[in-house]
C-alpha cells in the first residue's frame, strides 16, 4: 500500500508544484522537499525489516484483460536506491529552490524535478516489467524537459534532443527486450522472473532479449558508444546535473542490470558484453576528462567513467565485484552529487566554471572549500572517506576477476590515477591556485546551497569510518538481491598489507606525479586527442539524424508522388496479387459447361456488351465511346429482364438514358481526345487491367459455384405480404423493411443535385 501511495502523492506534488510556487515564494524548495524526505525516513525505517530478508510486494490491477498490473517490489536493492533517490532528491529540492531564484519559471522547474524524482523512484520499486518501462520512459521525458530548461539557448535544446533521442531509442529497444523476456515466462511479474532464471537462459529468445535490454541499459547509463549525451546534458542547470549524475537517470541503467542479474546474468555473453563495454567506458570517460577545462564537463566525464566501472563490476559478477559495485554506487552518488552542487555554487559566486579562470577561493569560502575537498578526497579514494573502501573493493574484484584480470586491472589502475590527478587538480587549482580578478568578491554560499553537500560529505565520512556498522546494513541485502549466491563481505577500512593496498598507494603516487608534471603532460595529451579523437560523437550523431531526415524526405517523395494513376495502380496491383495468391491456394473450381442453359439471344447480348466495352475503351471518339456506353447499359438491362430483375430493368433504362444525355451535354464542352500516354504506358495499364479483370472473373466463378443460405431473404419472402401487404418483394424491401436506407439514398442524391447546382450556377467570377 505505502509504496504505491507514496508515489501517487509524489506525482501529485509534482503536478501542483508549479502553481503553488507563487504562494510559497522562496520557501518552495524546502516545502516541496518535505514529502521526499518523509519517503526517505519511511524507507530508512524499512531497513530492519528488509534486513530480515523480507520483500514487500504490492499490486494494483491496471489492465486486467491484458494481464497488466502496477506491481511494486521492495527489497534490499530497491531500498538502497530509494534512499539515494529520495535522500539526494530532498537536498536537490532545497538547493534548487534557492539556486533557481534568479531564473524565470522556477515553479515549473521544481515541478519537473519532482516528476523526475517520481519517475526514478518508480523504476527502483517496480515489480513488473511494464510498470518499470512506463517509469523508465518518464525519466527520459522529464530529463528532456530539465536538460532543455534554458530553452532559449540552442545548445541546451540540442543537448536535450540528443539525450531524448538516444535514451528514447534505448527505451524502445528495452520494451522489445521486455516483451521477448516475458514470452518464456508468460508473465511480466518480477517475482516470476526472479524465481527461475534458467527458463530464459535455455530459451532461444535469450540472446535477442539480452541484446535489446542491454541497448536500453547502455543508452540510459551512457555507456560507450552512447556516452556522449551525458557530457552534453551538463548544459542543464546545476541542480539537475547533480541529481541526474548522482542518483537518477544514469543510474537507472545500472539498476536495471543489477535487478535483472539473477535472471539474465551469469552467462558468457552477459559477462563478456558487460565487461568489454564497461571497461571501455570506464577508461574513455576518464581519459576524455583529463583535458577538459569546464568544471561541470570534467565531472560529467568522470560520471561516464564511474558508470563504466559499475557495469564492469556487475558483468564480472564475482562476490567481490558485486560488493564493490554496490559500495561504489553509494560512494559515487554521495561525492558526485556534492561535487555538482558545489560546481553550481562556484559558478554562482564567481560567474564562471572554467577552471583556468578559477583560483584562490579558499580564503573566500573556506567552509565550502572543505566540503568540496572532502568530496574530492572520496573521489580519489583516500582514507578515511567511503571512496577508499569503494576503490579497495574494485581493486580486489579486479585482482580476482575470472577473465582478463590483467587487462581490467591495468585500465582500472589508469582510470584511478586519472581520478586522483583530477581530484588534486580541482582542489588545488580552484582553492589555492593563482587568483584571477573576480567581478565581485566571492562569498560563502548560503545555507540552502551548502546543506545538501555538507550532509552528503558527512555521510560519506561517517560511512567510511564505521563501515561495518553503518554501510553494512545499507548494502548487504542489496548485494544478495543482485546475486543470491553471494554474501555481503564485511566492510573494513584496514585490510592489512597486501597487493591491493600496494596498488592504492601506487595509484596515489602516480596521480600525484601526473599532477606535478601536468604542465608538460596536458598539452601532449591534448595534441594526441586532437589527432586521434577529432571526430566528436555529438557531431556524428547529428549528421546521422540529418541523413535520416534526408532519407525520409526522399522516401516520402518516392511514395507520395502526386500522380493519381500510380496510387490507383499500387492499390490495384497489391490487392489483386494478394487475392491471386489466395485463389492459387484455394481448391480448384469445377466448372460444368452446360450449353443448354445458354440461350442464343443472351449469348448475343453478352458478346455485344463485351464488344461495346472494348470499343468504348479503344475508341478515339468521345461520341462513339458514349454510344458504346449506351449499348452496354441497355445490354445489362436485357440481362436483368431475362433473370427476373424487373425493377432493376426499369430503373436501369431510366438511369442509363439520363446518364448518356448528361454525358453528351458535358462532352459538348470538352476538348477532343488527345494522345497523352505512350504505347508502353498503355501496355502496362492493359496488363494491370487484365490482372484485375481476370481476378474478378475467377471471383464470379467462385461465388457462382458456392451456394449460401439466404435466411434474410426467406424472412422477407414470408413477411412481405403478411406484414407489409406488398406483393413486389423488392419494392417492399426498399420502401418498408429498409426504408431508412432508401431515405439515406435520397439524401445522397439530393446532395449530389445540390452540388451540381452549385457548381454550375454559383461560381464566382475569378480573373
Amino acid at each position: 500500500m505505502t509504496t504505491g501511495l507514496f508515489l501517487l502523492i509524489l506525482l501529485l506534488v509534482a503536478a501542483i508544484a508549479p502553481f503553488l510556487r507563487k504562494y510559497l515564494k522562496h520557501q518552495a524548495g524546502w516545502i516541496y522537499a518535505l514529502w521526499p524526505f518523509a519517503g526517505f525516513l519511511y524507507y530508512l525505517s524499512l531497513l530492519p525489516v528488509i534486513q530480515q530478508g523480507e520483500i514487500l510486494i504490492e499490486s494494483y490491477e491496471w489492465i486486467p484483460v491484458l494481464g497488466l498490473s502496477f506491481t511494486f517490489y521492495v527489497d534490499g536493492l530497491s531500498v538502497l536506491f530509494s534512499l539515494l533517490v529520495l535522500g539526494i532528491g530532498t537536498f536537490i529540492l532545497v538547493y534548487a529552490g534557492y539556486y533557481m531564484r534568479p531564473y524565470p519559471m522556477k515553479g515549473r522547474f521544481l515541478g519537473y524535478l519532482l516528476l523526475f524524482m517520481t519517475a526514478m523512484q518508480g523504476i527502483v520499486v517496480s515489480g513488473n516489467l511494464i510498470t518499470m518501462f512506463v517509469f523508465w520512459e518518464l525519466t527520459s521525458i522529464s530529463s528532456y524537459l530539465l536538460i532543455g530548461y534554458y530553452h532559449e539557448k540552442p545548445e541546451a535544446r540540442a543537448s536535450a534532443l540528443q539525450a531524448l533521442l538516444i535514451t528514447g531509442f534505448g527505451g524502445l529497444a528495452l520494451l522489445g527486450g521486455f516483451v521477448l523476456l516475458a514470452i518464456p515466462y508468460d508473465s511480466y511479474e518480477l517475482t516470476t522472473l526472479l524465481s527461475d532464471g534458467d527458463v530464459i537462459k535455455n530459451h532461444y529468445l535469450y540472446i535477442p532479449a539480452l541484446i535489446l535490454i542491454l541497448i536500453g541499459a547502455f543508452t540510459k547509463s551512457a555507456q560507450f558508444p552512447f556516452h556522449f549525451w551525458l557530457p552534453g546534458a551538463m548544459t542543464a542547470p546545476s541542480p539537475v546535473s547533480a541529481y541526474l549524475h548522482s542518483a537518477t537517470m544514469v543510474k537507472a541503467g545500472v539498476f536495471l542490470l543489477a535487478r535483472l542479474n539473477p535472471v539474465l546474468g551469469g552467462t558468457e555473453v552477459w559477462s563478456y558484453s558487460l565487461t568489454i563495454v564497461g571497461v571501455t567506458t570506464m577508461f574513455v570517460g576518464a581519459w576524455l576528462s583529463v583535458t577538459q577545462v569546464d568544471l561541470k564537463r570534467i565531472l560529467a566525464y568522470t560520471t561516464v567513467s564511474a558508470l563504466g566501472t559499475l557495469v564492469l563490476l556487475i558483468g564480472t559478477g564475482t562476490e567481490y565485484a558485486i560488493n564493490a559495485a554496490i559500495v561504489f554506487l553509494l560512494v559515487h552518488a554521495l561525492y558526485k552529487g556534492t561535487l555538482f552542487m558545489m560546481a553550481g555554487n562556484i559558478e554562482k559566486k564567481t560567474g564562471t566554471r572554467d577552471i583556468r579562470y578559477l583560483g584562490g577561493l579558499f580564503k573566500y569560502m573556506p567552509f565550502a572549500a572543505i566540503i568540496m575537498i572532502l568530496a574530492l578526497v572520496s573521489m580519489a579514494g583516500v582514507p578515511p572517506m567511503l571512496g577508499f573502501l569503494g576503490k579497495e573493493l574494485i581493486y580486489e574484484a579486479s585482482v580476482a576477476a575470472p577473465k582478463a584480470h590483467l587487462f581490467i586491472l591495468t585500465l582500472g589502475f589508469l582510470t584511478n590515477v586519472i581520478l586522483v590527478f583530477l581530484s588534486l587538480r580541482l582542489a588545488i587549482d580552484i582553492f589555492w591556485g593563482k587568483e584571477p580578478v573576480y567581478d565581485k568578491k566571492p562569498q560563502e554560499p548560503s545555507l540552502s546551497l551548502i546543506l545538501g553537500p555538507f550532509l552528503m560529505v558527512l555521510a560519506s565520512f561517517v560511512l567510511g569510518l564505521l563501515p561495518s556498522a553503518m554501510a553494512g546494513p545499507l548494502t548487504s541485502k542489496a548485494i544478495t538481491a543482485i546475486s543470491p549466491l553471494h554474501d555481503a563481505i564485511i566492510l573494513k577500512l584496514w585490510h592489512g598489507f597486501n597487493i591491493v593496498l600496494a596498488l592504492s598507494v601506487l595509484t596515489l603516487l602516480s596521480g600525484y606525479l601526473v599532477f606535478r608534471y601536468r604542465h608538460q603532460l596536458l598539452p601532449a595529451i591534448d595534441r594526441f586527442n586532437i589527432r586521434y579523437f577529432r571526430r566528436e560523437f555529438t557531431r556524428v550523431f547529428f549528421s546521422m539524424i540529418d541523413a535520416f531526415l534526408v532519407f525520409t524526405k526522399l522516401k516520402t517523395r518516392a511514395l507520395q508522388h502526386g500522380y493519381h494513376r500510380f496510387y490507383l495502380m499500387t492499390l490495384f496491383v497489391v490487392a489483386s496479387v494478394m487475392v491471386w495468391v489466395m485463389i492459387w491456394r484455394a481448391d480448384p473450381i469445377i466448372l460444368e459447361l452446360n450449353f443448354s442453359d445458354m440461350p442464343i439471344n443472351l449469348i448475343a447480348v453478352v458478346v455485344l456488351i463485351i464488344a461495346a466495352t472494348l470499343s468504348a475503351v479503344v475508341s478515339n471518339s468521345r461520341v462513339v465511346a458514349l454510344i458504346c456506353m449506351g449499348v452496354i447499359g441497355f445490354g445489362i438491362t436485357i440481362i436483368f429482364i431475362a433473370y427476373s430483375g424487373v425493377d432493376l430493368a426499369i430503373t436501369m433504362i431510366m438511369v442509363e438514358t439520363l446518364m448518356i444525355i448528361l454525358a453528351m451535354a458535358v462532352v459538348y464542352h470538352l476538348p477532343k481526345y488527345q494522345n497523352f500516354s505512350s504505347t508502353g504506358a498503355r501496355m502496362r495499364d492493359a496488363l494491370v487491367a487484365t490482372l484485375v479483370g481476370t481476378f474478378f472473373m475467377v471471383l464470379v466463378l467462385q461465388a457462382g459455384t458456392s451456394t449460401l443460405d439466404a435466411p434474410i431473404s426467406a424472412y422477407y419472402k414470408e413477411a412481405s405480404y403478411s406484414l407489409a401487404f406488398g406483393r413486389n418483394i423488392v419494392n417492399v424491401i426498399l420502401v418498408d423493411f429498409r426504408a431508412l436506407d432508401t431515405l439515406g439514398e435520397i439524401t445522397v442524391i439530393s446532395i449530389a443535385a445540390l452540388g451540381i447546382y452549385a457548381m454550375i450556377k454559383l461560381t464566382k467570377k475569378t480573373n
Partner: protein
Amino acid sequence: MLFLFAIMIGVLYGAAVYLLLRRNIFKLVLGLIFLGHATNMLLFVAGGLTNGKPAFIRGLQGETVGMSDPLPQALILTAIVIGLGVTAFALTLVYRFYKVTKTVDFDQLSENE
C-alpha cells in the same frame, strides 16, 4: 451462362481499371461508370441466377418456391441510383474542372499548381 457472365464481368472490370489509369479526366468518369456496371453485375450474378421468376407474390398466401432472391436486387437498385448521383456529380465536376483549368490532362494540372 455463369461462365459467359464471368468473362463479361472480368472485361467490364478490366475496362474500368484501364480507364481509371488514364490521364484524361473524362475517361476517368467513364471508368467510374464501368466500375458501377461491373459491380452491379457481380452482385447480380453472385446472388444467383433465376430465369423468369421475379420476386412477386401471387395469390393470397403466395407461392415463394423457386422465386428469385429479392435481397441482391434491392441492393443493386440502391447502387444503381446512387451510381447515377455520383456519375452526374463527377460529370459536372469534369465540366467545371475544364472551365477553370482549361485542360483535361491530370499531369498538366500538377505542373501548373
